[in-house]
């Protein structure tokens, strides 16, 4: 009977609990007590160092989707990163940035905050990604204003702020991605330099050898011109490999042509243009000269003077070394002879012969230039009509300059004018005057040489240099971690690098075939190789097994976790692991440059997301996670710490 009572009691208790909705909170006491969670690293751990000035005004501050408010654990997931959530798990409150500043705002320390991570920071090099590089940054500056204090400085700052490690801190370390980016940037610059050198060398060689080529002495001028043009093109907004190579090629060809290379010119075409122009110039010259010398004469006198003067002009013009002066002189003599022969007075005109000659020369020049401009701006392959003024000006200047040279002849002046006109037209896009077959062949060969050389460098010496750089960063970071343990830290959680080859940034380097298959993913594979090299070195130097604590260090396999996220999104309730949640184009994203989707999640919030539900996207921008993704990260770190007995 007593047992009935037990059952009845148990049932009543059960019903009571059921009525309350069931499910209690249980014991939420952390098994391991920590005084604080201290974080060192970069943007992935940064809790808002740059939440100041213009960045703050833009509604940013953290490297994720900012401004999603709500208590930790709420849905949609509020804007906290993994380091903050681990802090909330371990000590009951999210961590905060120990330093504020950057982007033109002076750095200040924040008492009571122990997250020292800063976006852009590297392991040792203070010149992180987006750093001002020592230069002063004006208030309100949105780019190149990050503090990027390296991990070594962050640790020193913590020691300075706190008085040293007590052993009661839980320390998190995640750094290295920016050293990898720096290595990649250097590799790209070096590979481009190698490619440019090969390009310039190939073009120069082609332009100073072979029939009709410029003399070898022009090589230096060609190289200098190409180098300057390519540097200028590379600095231009929206520069591409093609735009840089084209600018360099044009400069090289122009210089070669100016140095006497006729192989790159369409000589027949140019000669035809010049012939036409010269004919018209001669005609204008003759009409003006004859007209001037017979002005105001009686019709009967004009009838004898005109044929006589014209004959003299023709004869003088045909002479070797004919010049305006020699022709004007001959014409004046013929006019004078005719006046004597036929008994009339032409002294007034003869006294003005020099002025008449000048007017005739001007008329000739004008006719020549007008004809050339017309030829160079009309017809197939011609420069656009908008280039007419430039051609005209260049020819005018060339004529003036050539005429001023002692011993100037008509031929020398017209040649100078022709060259100036042709060069300007070529620069403006006239292909009719160029030997495009040859130029294309030279450029094609040079580009192939450039790409081959660049790729050879990138795959060989460049890749090796990048690998050495990240391995050095990993070894240095491991040294800092062990140093913290030596100084009294007892719990240092180190995250290895995620598989950065899976970020939208690295995926964006893949070149696809028309059918969607991968044509070239060597850049992405290089990222993976660098990440693997970093992680291998980090683990080797820390001397630990992944997930197994030893000597105060626990290495978390963030790398595999990120691969799991991407390969098994369903397990993690991720709806998109390839695209970015933030609109990274200008003007929506204040850190983007016009025409490029190169903005940053640092100024991303609910107001400048892409359209649609992005709450369970993996990436906020091309390298940074969304708040939801950060939460998944914190779950993994917590899990590994729990399994290790650290949480």
């Amino acid at each position, binding site marked *: 009977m007593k*047992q*009935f009572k*037990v*059952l009845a009691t*148990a*049932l009543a*208790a*059960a019903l009571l*609990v*059921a009525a309350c*909705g*069931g*499910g*209690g*909170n*249980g*014991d*939420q*006491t*952390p*098994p391991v007590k920590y005084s604080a969670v201290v974080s060192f690293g970069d943007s992935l751990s940064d809790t808002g160092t740059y939440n100041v000035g213009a960045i703050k005004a833009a509604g940013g501050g953290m490297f994720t989707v900012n401004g999603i408010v709500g*208590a*930790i*654990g*709420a*849905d949609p997931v509020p804007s*906290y990163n993994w380091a*903050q*959530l*681990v*802090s*909330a*798990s371990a000590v*009951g409150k*999210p961590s905060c940035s120990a330093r504020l500043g950057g982007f033109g705002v002076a750095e200040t320390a924040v008492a009571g905050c122990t997250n020292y991570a800063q976006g852009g920071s590297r392991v040792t090099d203070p010149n992180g990604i987006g750093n001002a590089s020592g230069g002063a940054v004006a208030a309100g500056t949105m780019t190149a204003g990050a503090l990027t204090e390296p991990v070594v400085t962050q640790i020193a700052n913590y020691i300075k702020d706190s008085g040293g490690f007590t052993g009661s801190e839980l320390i998190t370390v995640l750094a290295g991605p920016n050293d990898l980016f720096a290595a990649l940037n250097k590799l790209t610059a070096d590979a481009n330099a190698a490619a440019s050198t090969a390009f310039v060398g190939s073009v120069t060689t082609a332009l100073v050898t072979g029939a009709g080529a410029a003399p070898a002495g022009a090589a230096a001028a060609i190289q200098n011109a190409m180098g300057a043009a390519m540097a200028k093109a590379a600095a231009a907004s929206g520069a591409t490999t093609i735009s840089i190579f084209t600018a360099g090629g044009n400069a090289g060809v122009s210089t070669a042509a100016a140095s006497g290379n006729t192989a790159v010119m369409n000589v027949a075409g140019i000669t035809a243009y010049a012939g036409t122009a010269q004919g018209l110039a001669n005609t204008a010259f003759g009409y003006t000269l004859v007209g001037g010398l017979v002005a105001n004469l009686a019709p009967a006198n004009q009838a004898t003077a005109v044929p006589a003067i014209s004959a003299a002009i023709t004869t003088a013009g045909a002479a070797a070394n004919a010049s305006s002066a020699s022709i004007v002189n001959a014409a004046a003599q013929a006019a004078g002879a005719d006046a004597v022969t036929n008994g009339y007075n032409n002294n007034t005109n003869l006294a003005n012969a020099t002025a008449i000659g000048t007017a005739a020369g001007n008329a000739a020049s004008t006719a020549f230039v007008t004809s050339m401009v017309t030829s160079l701006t009309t017809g197939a392959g011609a420069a656009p009509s908008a280039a007419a003024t430039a051609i005209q000006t260049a020819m005018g200047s060339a004529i003036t300059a050539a005429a001023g040279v002692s011993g100037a002849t008509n031929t020398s002046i017209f040649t100078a004018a022709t060259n100036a006109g042709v060069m300007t037209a070529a620069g403006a896009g006239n292909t009719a005057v160029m030997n495009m077959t040859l130029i294309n062949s030279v450029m094609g060969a040079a580009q192939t040489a450039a790409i081959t050389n660049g790729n050879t460098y990138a795959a060989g010496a460049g890749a090796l240099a990048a690998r050495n750089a990240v391995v050095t960063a990993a070894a240095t970071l491991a040294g800092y971690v062990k140093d913290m343990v030596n100084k009294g830290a007892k719990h240092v959680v180190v995250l290895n690098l995620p598989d950065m080859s899976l970020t939208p940034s690295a995926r964006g380097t893949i070149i696809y075939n028309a059918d969607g298959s991968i044509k070239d993913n060597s850049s992405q594979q290089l990222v993976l190789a660098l990440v693997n090299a970093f992680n291998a070195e980090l683990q080797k130097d820390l001397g630990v097994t992944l997930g197994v604590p030893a000597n105060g260090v626990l290495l978390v396999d963030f790398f*595999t976790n990120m691969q*799991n996220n991407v*390969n*098994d999104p*369903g*397990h*993690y*309730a*991720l709806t998109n692991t390839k695209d970015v949640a933030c609109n990274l184009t200008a003007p929506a994203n204040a850190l983007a440059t016009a025409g490029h989707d190169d903005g940053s999640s640092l100024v991303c919030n609910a107001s400048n997301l892409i359209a649609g539900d992005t709450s369970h996207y993996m990436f906020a921008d091309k390298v940074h996670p969304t708040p939801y993704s950060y*939460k*998944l990260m*914190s*779950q*993994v770190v*917590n*899990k590994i710490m*729990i*399994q290790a007995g650290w*949480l």
Partner: protein
Amino acid sequence: MKHQMKFLAVAAAAMLAAGSVCAQTAGTWMVRAGATQLAPVGPSGCMTAPDYGDGSGCTRSNVSADTQLAGGITYMYTDNISFDVPLALPFKHNVIGAGSLEGAGKLGEVKALPMTVFLQYRFLEANAKFRPYVGLGVTYAYFFDEQGSYHLTQTTNPGGPPTSFTVDAKFILTPQIGATLALNDKWFIDVFYSKAKLSTTTHFSTGQSMNADLDPAAYGIAVGYKF
């Protein structure tokens, strides 16, 4: 099963030969008290997203066994057919991380109260000293007082409010075998084994859930008294 029955029958026959007289006749009431162990099997199925999946693994759990003071009441409807209601204090089970959460320790605890009515068939004669029996019960498996742990919270909702959970109650069938051994006219010893087919779902306050085939086995031993 058949083999085991044969063995029991032989054992019972041997005891009969000893010639004891211990009646379990129609209309007899019996009560008993002892201990019962409830042992669910594991591990559970995968927790719904987000879990810690990696293609081959996922977040699972195991449920520990528990032994409680237990007994029951039996009524002999005929000399061979009886009704039996086992009684027990609630069983307290720990929910232990498994699968991807292997090594994470206790994720929570839950109390189980299986309420069963068995219809039993008792072999041999009413006065046999040893009587094996088989039974089939209808069980209402009820769970209450579920308590999540710190580790459950920190793996499902880091830094957030405590994660709680509830386990769905279920009606199930429970087959049973057992035997009584009469000590004298009034007192006897009862042993039994049952194995239920129980699939239930755990619902977490994070919106996630986890299916589990707990299929608990129950073992009991008790001392009984006949009225």
